């Protein structure tokens, strides 16, 4: 895994996965930005779902400004779009890893693991099947622009 920000999704999230990332500081309950400053690497363990989209954006900018690398362990596949690198575990084994968008194109493999696609990716795929768009969009503005030109 490159030294980059990563989302880790598991179909059976558990703390055993943390043993592979011992040099990261783990955050699994409410936190403030001040809590993060003293660490160069942090793990958010199933916690970012509590934040609004604006708060996540703020957090992301903060981490970027302070050059803090993070790994986001989550059940929520929509959070995968926060990072460019995605790792998917199944039963404590890495099943897929790589560029987030490339991984999310493997829809059948993802569904076989009991997971679902992020909403805009799933919607884009269905709209492509209907011939209404010709590529994948990851946000409402660009998707709306492609549909109602």
């Amino acid at each position: 895994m490159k030294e980059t920000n990563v989302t880790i999704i598991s179909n059976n999230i558990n703390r055993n996965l943390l043993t592979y990332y011992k040099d990261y500081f783990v955050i699994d309950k409410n936190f403030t930005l001040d809590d993060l400053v003293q660490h160069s690497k942090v793990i958010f363990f199933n916690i970012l779902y509590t934040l609004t989209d604006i708060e996540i954006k703020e957090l992301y900018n903060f981490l970027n400004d302070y050059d803090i690398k993070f790994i986001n362990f989550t059940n929520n596949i929509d959070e995968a779009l926060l990072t460019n690198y995605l790792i998917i575990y199944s039963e404590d084994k890495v099943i897929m890893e790589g560029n987030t968008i490339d991984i999310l194109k493997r829809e059948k493999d993802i569904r076989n693991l009991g997971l679902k696609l992020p909403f805009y990716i799933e919607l884009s795929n269905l709209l492509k099947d209907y011939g209404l768009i010709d590529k994948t969009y990851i946000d409402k503005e660009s998707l709306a622009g492609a549909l109602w030109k």
Partner: protein
Amino acid sequence: MEIKTYLNEYGIIGVVSNYKNSLQPFNTIQDLNIKNLESALKMVGLDNTIIAKKYSDITINELWKIELATKLNNEIIIVGNLSTSLNNKDINYMKKLFRKLSQEYHKKIVIIDDDINIFFEIVKKILVVKNHKVIYETEDFFDKQLYRHCKMPKIVEFINYINRDKKILQNNVEIYELIKDIYRSV
């Protein structure tokens, strides 16, 4: 209105609130004295191999299902944190199970979660509860006031965005209905 009154009317309700898992640590599952253990485990999607597992080896997903297994004989079944404990396949399974428990076994079900997506296709009434009081209630997933208390699902966000100046799409929480509606409107 009391939550019991809502349950009598709706059978299954969704509650936006914090939920703390109630299952205390145990040595093995036998310690929990679950009635008809094997069939209870089967009902929640676990097999008998879990019986021999120690608490420290059990995953969050499995713990959630075990907690549900302990509640199956209750008249009112309260569950929470599906969105953070289960994967999508399990969530869909549990929705079918809750419908079965409600329709065939006449159980009342309270689903507590911050993620409104969990309530789609299963819940007709949503309550927002703070400090043990119902502070808001709605039957409409597109009720803007609801989203003062929780995150808006992406499908609602998308439809609201498209309809911001003019109503183009119908309010829908089912993605295939949304696709048909988009197809008709472009």
